[in-house]
């Protein structure tokens, strides 16, 4: 009987292979679709769905992404776009956490929200979306909030944690847990025309000040709201940082950075954190 290597080679075209063939191979050889994609890449055959990733990243880096896991905390304005992008990029394992269901006020900016899923759990919509855009991803949705009781268990085995939260109280729980776990953290915040993005290998005084020092639950977003382009922009920056952390092209393992975005003067400022 033909083995999987011969099957992949005989069904590839000029170094590429399509999804239908990979699904057939997964069934025939008793492997997951994700594993067939990894095996294919290891043979130097690129799944068509990742064709336009290659060039920005290498085949080896695509394999690394498929073998990586991340935890997205929040499936709202930021989380929806981050899930979309990391799913399409090919991050192999994604866990997403959100206790909420969709409300009408989410429709202006949350990618996963639509007029037909008001009242539906955000993680359920996330699950459905991942199946549509990249069924190779191992996705786990958890309809719960992050808290001091579940955070350690959630962080276990994760390569990068992503703060897509909308309140400071939960961010404090996350930052405290990350300080002990040494897992890289990528996060962001949005408010009106403004946004922040950060990555960190350890909780710093600046991150503590950004999210712990204020005696509020929320920031200026309470007064400014959030138009649709700002979560898309901040989420895309977070996704790019996650990708770079997973493939290992962010230098250093201690200092992090925080970026401030202002869409009124189209400026971008960088600070060490």
């Amino acid at each position, binding site marked *: 009987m033909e083995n999987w290597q011969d099957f992949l080679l005989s069904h590839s075209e000029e170094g590429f292979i399509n999804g239908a063939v990979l699904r057939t191979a997964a069934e025939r050889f008793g492997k997951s679709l994700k594993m067939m994609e990894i095996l294919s890449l290891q043979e130097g055959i690129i799944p068509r769905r990742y064709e336009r990733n290659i060039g920005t990243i290498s085949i080896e880096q695509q394999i690394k992404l498929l073998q990586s896991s991340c935890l997205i905390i929040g499936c709202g304005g930021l989380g929806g776009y981050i899930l979309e992008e990391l799913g399409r990029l090919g991050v192999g394992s994604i866990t997403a956490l959100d206790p909420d269901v969709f409300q009408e006020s989410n429709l202006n900016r949350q990618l996963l929200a639509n007029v037909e899923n008001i009242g539906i759990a955000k993680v359920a919509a996330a699950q459905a979306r991942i199946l549509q855009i990249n069924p190779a991803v191992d996705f786990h949705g958890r309809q719960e909030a992050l808290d001091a009781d579940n955070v350690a268990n959630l962080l276990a085995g994760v390569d990068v944690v992503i703060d897509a939260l909308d309140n400071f109280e939960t961010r404090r729980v996350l930052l405290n847990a990350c300080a002990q776990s040494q897992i890289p953290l990528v996060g962001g915040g949005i408010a009106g025309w*403004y946004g922040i993005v950060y990555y960190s290998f350890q909780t710093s005084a*600046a991150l503590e000040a950004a999210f712990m020092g204020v005696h509020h639950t929320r920031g200026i977003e309470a007064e*400014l709201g959030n138009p649709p382009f700002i*979560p898309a922009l901040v989420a895309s920056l977070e996704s790019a940082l996650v990708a770079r952390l997973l493939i290992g092209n962010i230098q250093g393992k201690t200092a992090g950075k925080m970026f401030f975005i202002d869409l009124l003067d189209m400026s971008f*400022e960088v600070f060490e954190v």
Partner: protein
Amino acid sequence: MKVKIKLFATLREGRFAEKDFLFDMPTKVIDVVRMLEIPEAEIALIFINGTHSSFDYPLRENDTLALFPPIGGG
């Protein structure tokens, strides 16, 4: 003592985005905040020359002070 002050986001309202100031006596960040009549609770982040700082920091010649409000939506 010349100091550049940069205000971000809503802190600019009724004030400025970036301005140079001359102080003729020792000045801490908190003194600047009070001079600009910014309530302390409206400031989440203080950076001096790109590094995180605090209200107590004594400013020095040619420092750049950047102040940010809390931004936490998601």
